[in-house]
Structures are given as C-alpha cells and as structure tokens.
C-alpha cells in the first residue's frame, strides 16, 4: 500500500506501517554509516551527548558521492545495513525511530525494532542517481573530517522507501522471497 509520511514521526505512525508498504517520506532525516556509528558509540561510552537528538529520528545508512555545483548532493543510495547491526539496537533503545538501508538485519536488531516500536525501511540499492532527486538539501552537522561518512542532515521530499521490518517484527525479505520461490 502506498503511504505518505512526514519525518520525524512517533510511535503511533510507526505502528501503523506494515511490512511491504511503499512509503514516501517528506521532512528531515540524518545520514550515518560505519565510521559515524563507531564514533557515536564512542561518544556514548564516554557518557557524552550524541551530535543530534536521535529521538523519533530516522537514520539513513548512506555516504553520498560529491555534489556537482548547484546540486544539493551527489549520488545517494543506501548502503548495506547489517554493518550497523552492532550499534543499531542501542540507538533504537535511545529512541531512534528507524533506519533506511538495504539488506538483512540481525535478530537482535529485529527484537529492538519490536521493543521500541520502530521500523526498518529499504531504499532501492544502486539507484543513487534517482534517489538523489528526492533530496532537497544536505548539510554536514558532525564529523566533517569523515568525508562521505560525516553525519548529514537531509531535507527530503517524497523519498521512496519500502517497509521491510515493521514494528511487529514482520520481515519482507523472508515473506516476499517465499512467495516467489520455485525450488
């Protein structure tokens, strides 16, 4: 089912999403991938504050290519989410509402999604040029020295994603594959 949703959003909106829904996101999301997650984790271990308030926010696992002049961003598709599994459940427990990536998640992350009424969206991997057209603006807000891996605040308009794991833990990667399996 096609839905339009404003980001960030709360528990109520998250619980209304179902695995398999096609959703267009409009509003503010944040990017972070391997190196930024490692650094955020070290920040938490020192007992310090994260560089942005993650409560109700969506993290997009993405490191863009450089923007050409006059454009907000370069190519901007999702990276493999499982590399962030080590960090995701802690961040979800701190109130992060969800993430956008591609690929399988660990059972630990799936449980954290259920526990926190969160959501895991997939964007289409390898469609970075197309996805960049739904990004209106991009601003580095932390870890500038990490280059493509810096944390960016993105304004998105009708950014297309698919609900893979919903707040009840249903997983589209399992159900959809079984539907089309012929062997």
């Amino acid at each position, binding site marked *: 089912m096609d839905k339009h949703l404003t980001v960030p959003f709360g528990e109520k909106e998250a619980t209304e999403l179902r695995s*398999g829904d*096609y959703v267009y996101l409009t509003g503010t999301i944040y990017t972070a991938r391997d*190196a930024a997650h490692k650094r955020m984790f070290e920040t938490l271990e020192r007992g310090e504050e994260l560089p942005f308030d993650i409560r109700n926010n969506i993290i997009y696992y*993405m*490191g*863009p*290519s*450089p*923007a*050409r002049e006059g*454009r907000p961003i*370069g*190519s*901007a*598709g999702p*990276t*493999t989410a*499982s590399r962030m599994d080590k960090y995701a459940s802690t961040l979800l427990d701190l109130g992060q509402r969800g993430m956008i990536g*591609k*690929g*399988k998640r660990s059972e630990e992350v799936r449980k954290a999604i259920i526990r926190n009424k969160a959501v895991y969206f*997939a964007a*289409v*991997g*390898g*469609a*970075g*040029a*197309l996805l*960049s*057209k739904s990004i209106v603006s991009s601003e580095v807000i932390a870890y500038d020295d*990490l*280059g*493509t891996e810096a944390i960016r605040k993105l304004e998105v308009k009708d950014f*297309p994603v*698919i609900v*893979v794991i919903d707040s009840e833990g249903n997983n*589209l*990667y399992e*159900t*959809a*594959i*079984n*539907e*089309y*399996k*012929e*062997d």
Partner: protein
Amino acid sequence: MRTIHVNEITRNVKEMCIEANHYLTDDMKAALDQAAQKEKAPLGKQILNQLQENLEIAAKDMIPICQDTGMAVVFVELGQEVVLEGGLLTDAINEGVRQGYTEGFLRKSVVKDPLIRENTKDNTPAVIHYNIVAGDKIKITIAPKGFGSENMSRVFMLKPADGIEGVKNAILTAVKDAGPNACPPMVVGVGIGGTFEKCALMAKQALTRPVNQHSEIPYVKEMEEELLAKINQTGIGPGGLGGSTTALAVNIITYPTHIAGLPVAVNICCHVNRHCVREI
C-alpha cells in the same frame, strides 16, 4: 617496437573511471530491459523500472549510477612490443584514478590501511592486474567495484570428489547468502580451477565478460544456463524484495588445477556491473 607515453595512459584511465561510473555497457542495459519486461512480481517490476530510470538520470545529469563508485580494479594487457616512456605504468594508472575520481565528482571510498582506516581522499591506490600479451598495444579494462556485493563474495576449496554438483551447490549457496545485501539483480562471476588466488582473479575477470555471451566450453555454457535458471527460482528478486529476477547472468571461467583440488570462487556484482575497455 612501439613507444607510448605514460601520460596517454593517465588520460585514458581518468576518462574511463568517469565513463564507467555514469554509463553501463549496452549488454547490461539490454539485460535489465529484458528483465523488467519478464519480471513476475509487481514490486520487482517497479524496482527494475526504477533502475532503468536511474540509468537515464545518471547519464543525463552526470550523477554516478551508484554512490559507491567503487575501488578501481584495473586489468592491463600489455603487448610485449610496447615501450613505455615518461614514468612507471603503475604510477600513471594511479594518477588517472586520482584525477578521474577527483575531477569526476566520484566518491573516495579507499582507506590507506585496512585496520587504521584513514581515507586516502583520492580513491587510490587501484587494484591492478598485469598480463603480458603479444602485440604492440595496451588494453585497459577499468572495473570500479562496489563493496555491497564484494562483501558477499566467497572462495570454496572443494575436493575433486565434490564434482560438478559440489560446484553448483557452492555457487547457489553464495548467491542465497548474498540475498538482498548484494543489490540484486546480480551478475555472478565464477572462477573454477587454478589455485586459491587464481580462481578469485578469474571470478573477477568473468564479471567483465558481456552478460549476453556464454563460455565457449559446451559443458560450462550449460552450467551457466542451468545456474541462472536456478538462481532466478530462489525468489530473492529485485532488491531482494521477491521476484523472478535475482541474477542477470552467470559468467564462468575455468583453468587447469592440481590433482588434489577443486577451487571455486564466486565474485558477486550488483546490477551496477561497471566496466570500460579501451585499447591504446
């Protein structure tokens, strides 16, 4: 003998890095087009259409097809009658990669040390494979490799007794384990035989063969066709979200091996199977 200045190598490598990251080869575009027409799943079809739209936007607006513009893998076939002047060939290739990735707005994804992980900020060094061949030309293939799919690649050191069924099972296992992580529809490059490192290199080379061409060895061609059909029955589908298009091609290269061994390497590539070839 023929003399070639290394500056010509640098210029070509620079252009090829930019070209490979913005335009797919015609065989890849045709394979995606066919897949979009045949896909059974509605969501799968929608994703395949988006991938085609993505290619159009990439070419029209000069935005890389994928933000992971890869680590530059370079195959060089150097004619032994060529004399190079002006510097070292390896330096000239790396300079081309540096210029291509910097001036072409491509992502710098290479870290200097695998554990210290400091970005080199110009995507060098490339991974370069040299082969000396007959003639007075240099053939260069640039294949930028993204790591979503590279991370799902495997080497299996099988036993001779495992035979052809063992090889097929290994390939299917690698593809099923890769699933949605490798950005399907994939291209599956396979190397069978040789040694531990030789089979991996053949698997990588197999990815640069056009997806509409089969092996010239009849039994290998049959294996390629059978495996492609089986992979497309797994249900993984475009984006791993279900469907009948999980791979666009299975390309296999074989080589003689040892009496005690049956090495098999599976190098998985996403649908952004990039390569650019020039002969200088």
